[in-house]
């Protein structure tokens, strides 16, 4: 490379940075949106059910039944309200004031003594995941109460018969809070947004207005134009990433078991992929509306839905899994989650880094080709 290259690159980059800083809406996307998202993801979103309202219908008023319900009250996950009749409970459920109804029939304590009691649990199934979680909580609260009662009465049903209990160990997320997996996922989203969406939008505008063609008549080469475009947005992406890292560590106490340098390194790789996708989309569409829609559909929405961010890829049908596996975001997500929560797992890191570098090379080369072809 001769001196001209660096001089032109520097001048172009300076122009791009100025252009970026001039329009407030760009900075809003690059800086304000990550901030808002960090707050929403860290404080607002949670899959952890707390204080779920449950209507309890006690048709049996015996002390045994009362003790049973006391167990529910102790659970931090449930907020039981005793109602007088099944009718009242149903009305609460119809108004969606409660998520579930637990009914203890009138012969409950008598049959519990015989070892054959039934309780009925009716769930509001609209939000299936929450319902299932509540079912688990009610089940374990009742089981706890049963054990306490058996201990108190002194006669375990049949001491000679053993039973199995499940001993759980949660790896990588001891606190078992969804914030821990939402925050690393957030980094993937923000990097995708800045890299692909913002870049596609800004470039498409230049294509649409013809200002890019105007640049082509100057002595600058397409590579220099592309590099000068990449550099400022790379900077914005890195700022977003650093904000996320700081928030993860100091606001949300998400552990970072892996090396910080590795996190930065894989993020750089992924940012190149995302920037490349943005450049490619704009070069193909050359129209702001189309580019924004395409960026949304091909990069952002899949990163949200198909990368294993919220929905585990392993539960999806094979065809959808394949689509997910092809996405660069999925590989970045995988390595980032491991680096945050599990540590430096080299096989995971190496495999995904190679894939990300591969993507970066292919996508950037394609963007470069698309830009040159137009010059001729």
């Amino acid at each position, binding site marked *: 490379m001769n001196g001209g290259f660096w001089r032109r690159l520097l001048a172009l980059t300076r122009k791009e940075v100025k252009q970026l800083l001039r329009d407030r809406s760009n900075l*809003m996307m690059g800086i304000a949106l990550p901030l808002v*998202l960090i707050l929403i993801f860290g404080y607002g979103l949670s899959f952890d059910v707390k204080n779920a309202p449950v209507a309890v219908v006690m048709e049996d008023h015996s002390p045994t039944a009362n003790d049973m319900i006391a167990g529910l009250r102790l659970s931090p996950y449930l907020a039981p309200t005793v109602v007088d009749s099944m009718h009242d409970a149903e009305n609460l459920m119809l108004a969606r004031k409660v998520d579930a109804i637990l009914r203890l029939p009138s012969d409950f304590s008598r049959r519990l003594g015989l070892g054959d009691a039934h309780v009925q649990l009716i769930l509001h199934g609209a939000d299936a995941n929450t319902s299932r979680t509540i079912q688990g909580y009610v*089940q374990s609260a009742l089981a706890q109460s049963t054990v306490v009662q058996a201990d108190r009465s002194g006669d375990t049903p*049949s001491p000679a018969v053993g039973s199995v209990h499940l001993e759980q160990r949660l790896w990588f997320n001891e606190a078992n809070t969804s914030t821990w997996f939402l925050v690393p996922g957030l980094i993937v989203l923000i990097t995708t947004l800045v890299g692909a969406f913002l870049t596609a939008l800004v470039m498409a505008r230049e294509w649409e207005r013809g200002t890019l063609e105007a640049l082509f008549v100057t002595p600058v080469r397409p590579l220099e134009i592309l590099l000068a475009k990449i550099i400022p947005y790379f900077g914005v992406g890195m700022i977003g990433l650093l904000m996320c890292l700081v928030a993860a560590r100091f606001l949300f106490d998400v552990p970072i078991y892996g090396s910080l340098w590795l996190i930065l390194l894989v993020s750089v790789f992924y940012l190149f992929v995302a920037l490349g996708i943005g450049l490619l989309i704009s070069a193909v569409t050359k129209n702001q509306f189309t580019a924004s829609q395409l960026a949304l559909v091909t990069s952002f929405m899949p990163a949200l839905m198909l990368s294993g961010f*919220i929905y585990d890829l392993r539960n999806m049908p094979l065809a959808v899994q394949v689509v997910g596996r092809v996405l660069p975001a999925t590989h970045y997500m995988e390595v980032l989650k491991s680096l945050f929560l599990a540590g430096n797992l080299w096989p995971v890191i190496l495999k995904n880094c190679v894939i990300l570098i591969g993507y970066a090379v292919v996508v950037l080369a394609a963007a470069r080709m698309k830009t040159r072809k137009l010059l001729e």
Partner: protein
Amino acid sequence: MNAMLAFIRRVANLCSKELRVILKDPASRVLLFVPALLQSLMFGYAATLDLREAPYALLDQDHGPAAVQLVANVEGSGVFRRVATLDNERDIASVVDAGKVLFVLHIAPRFEQRLSAGEDTPVQVILDARNSTTAGTASGYLGAIVSRFNTDWRTGHGGADAPLTMDVRAWYNPNLETRWFMMSSMIAVLSMLQTLMLTALSVAREREQGTFDQLLVTPCTPTEIMIGKSVPSIFVGLVQSTLVLLIATLWFHIPMAGSLVTLYTGLLVFTVACVGIGLAISSLAVNMQQAMLYTFVLMMPLVLLSGMTTPIANMPTAMQWLTTINPARYAIHLVQRVYLEGVGLGTVIADIVPLLIIAAVTLPFSAWLFRHRLV
């Protein structure tokens, strides 16, 4: 009377012009419908928190009939599929680390012996909780499987039946499928993105291309221009909702419990509220790029705090307050109540009123901004 007719004619002309602008370009025509179609199909399959054939690894150091029976119970459920069989505890870390399995089921030596001796026998699960939701779901399933195993074991070995049985029933979604929830939410949310974007772009585009000034010299009043800009977006939004609705009922066979009239009344009010927000963005933005970025920056909180990704009840109180100005929140609630629960117009009025209020604030505000910016 004549003035009225002229008003209608002008609005109709404006509408047809706007619709033509939207549908003129083949690329944008495709973009209006194909993404909605693909996304609702794809996400209908992808957005599931239910486990199906989730991979697990087995470390059975006992091999007794009881252990074999327990494993059969785990695999017979169809929820879990064994992808690895381990020989010793050292191998646990590598399969879990690599993310190959969701959990390792570890049955220690002397399992059978302890169980037969009437002891409380542990069986260990090591869960990969990098995704805490999936881990929680898996552990729920496993708990149920183990308790069923216990019941069988107890009755098979002369013990009493379990003292307590819980009969579970789920209303409105008998098999507790996440998809029912997701698809019904998407009827509202998927169209929101495009309704907002289209409206926000419409004025910004004219301003950028200089045709806005031409509109101003026509006899059309700002109100007429606004209506002309709104109606096509509302139309496109409703068509997209219909598309998702068709996929939900015909492709995924999710039964529609309520009335279409109620559903569309709700969707119409929701789309009008979205158009109001879109127009407000449009009057604030100087060019298309700004309009798009503002839409997007607004869009993210609207979707995330709508109750679609995580329940609103789980949010901190301050965030819950914030959701009261989010139209998507009411729309999702409304669609779910009508679609899954089958409630009537009288019940969903509680969701329609806030949407009307949002529309009643945003539409006059953007009309005011229009006029304000014209001068």
